[in-house]
């Protein structure tokens, strides 16, 4: 049975004026429908590159990426992206930003009344209905990121791709948005691939944590299967020893193992 997203032996080499940069090697990954997968690793480990490849924003140097059995050849609304810095168009209101996406996806088949309803619903989903008429510069970072998520979800994508969506936010806002994301994903049953630096975030949200080795020529090192039951309660999990073990395992991979590996008997 084919997986929902398949990354098959993907390599990524960038050519620039400064020379070739081997970003990713031998990436094989399968993501099942409805799964929440996190890519974690140090800076420069190519996790954002991998996300861009899945999004279709970049083509791989070699290898194949499939989504729902079709090759990922270009970006599209079925693989919606939430960017690291929200990327809301500053000359449009929040409503218009989301509407742009809704219009693109549904205008061919639905009337403007329905499009309006979709836009409003998406904003409500992230608790931003009240700020629909505001411009991005009038709202806080956390709210901007929420609108970014609303825009992505409004397209009813097959896959939700998040590139360190909460990295630029303070800890409290981040915690709040993580909880909201959990609820939204539970409700929409989305398939999610998220890039993050934050170990706690990864353990709290994911079904699987894909830990990448250090670049250049980074690859997947270890995968941790986080089988904590859902819905996950942040406060309750702090006391759950399993949560602590998972967390430790990821921290260990990131900070202890990498660099401590003894030489191979060769």
């Amino acid at each position, binding site marked *: 049975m084919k997986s929902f997203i398949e990354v098959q032996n993907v390599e990524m080499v960038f050519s620039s004026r400064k020379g070739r940069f081997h970003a990713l090697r031998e990436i094989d990954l399968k993501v099942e429908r409805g799964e929440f997968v996190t890519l974690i690793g140090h800076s420069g480990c190519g996790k954002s590159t991998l996300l861009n490849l899945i999004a279709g924003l970049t083509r791989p140097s070699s290898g194949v990426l499939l989504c729902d059995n079709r090759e990922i050849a*270009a*970006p599209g*609304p079925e693989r919606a*992206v939430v960017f690291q810095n929200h990327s809301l*168009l*500053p*000359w449009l209101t929040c409503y218009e930003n989301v509407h742009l996406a809704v219009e*693109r996806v549904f205008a061919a088949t639905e009337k403007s009344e329905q499009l309006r309803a979709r836009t409003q619903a998406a904003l409500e989903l992230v608790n931003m209905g009240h700020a629909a008429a505001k*411009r991005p*510069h009038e709202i806080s970072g956390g709210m901007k990121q929420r609108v970014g998520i609303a825009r992505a979800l409004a397209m009813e994508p097959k896959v939700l791709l998040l590139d360190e969506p909460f990295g630029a936010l303070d800890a409290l806002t981040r915690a709040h948005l993580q909880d909201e994301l959990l609820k939204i994903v539970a409700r929409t049953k989305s398939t999610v691939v998220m890039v993050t630096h934050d170990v706690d975030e990864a353990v709290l949200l994911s079904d699987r944590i894909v830990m990448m080795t250090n670049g250049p020529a980074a690859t997947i090192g270890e995968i941790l299967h986080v089988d904590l039951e859902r819905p996950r309660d942040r406060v309750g999990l702090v006391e759950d020893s399993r949560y602590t073990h998972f967390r430790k395992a990821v921290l260990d991979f990131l900070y202890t193992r990498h660099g401590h590996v003894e030489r191979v008997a060769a």
Partner: protein
Amino acid sequence: MVSAVFHSSLDTRSAEARAPRVAASLAANEPLVPAADPAPARPGYDWRALLLKVVPPLVGMALLIAIWGTLTRDSTSFPTPGATFTEAVKVFSDPFYRNGPNDQGIGWNILFSLYRVAIGFGLAAAVGIPLGFLIGRFEIINNMTSPLISLLRPVSPLAWLPIGLLVFKAANPAAIWTIFICSIWPMIINTAVGVQRVPVDYLNVARVLNLSEWKVITRILFPAVLPYMLTGVRLSVGTAWLVIVAAEMLTGGVGIGFWVWDEWNNLNVKHILIAIGVIGLVGLVLEWMLIAIARRFSYDDH
């Protein structure tokens, strides 16, 4: 509870009013607002800031006029502030008279100069902005034109004037040509930079949304480049107004620059000073107008 504390402190200062406030704050366990001070009412108009903005410039002006007056008190060649003012009143009392093609009211002179600026400027925008778009969007065009632009940009606009006279054989088109050539550079360059600086994220959004090329240009590129374009326009206007005065001095005809030169020939220093004031004022007004337009279209979130 907390808001009850604050509101009541603003409303009244009587002891009776303070009692419920004290009670409210005790009930809310909030620290007591100092009761004794008759705090100012809710902030009214900020007179102090306004005064700070208006008074120093006025003082500066007054100082200048005072120095001017002192220096020219006993002079025969240079007019005093008083004399200049009287003359100014006379000039502006009938700004739109017509005594012949070379002798028209100051109003007409200003309007003619502005007309030339507008034409030259408009042409520069019509040519420069699309060209800037192309240069910004396509690397190859950038490579073709960039050395040319770097070469021609530092050339003083007035050096272009003889070429204009040669080609157009008349003062009016030559002056417009000069305006055109000096205004076009900031428009091209700023627009090109604006296009190059459109954040990749916005373009990525367009890609994920799979927007058509037309939609990308109208809904993403154009609004993103607009601030840069307007900056280019603003820079051009300042230079254009500067240049037209000089160009008119050299070519003659009707216009504020020509008037200055003409009055110099008549040794009417008062008129020259008035002209200086007028030129400066018009330039300032143009600048303000463009700043207002730029602000209208900005979406400052940085």
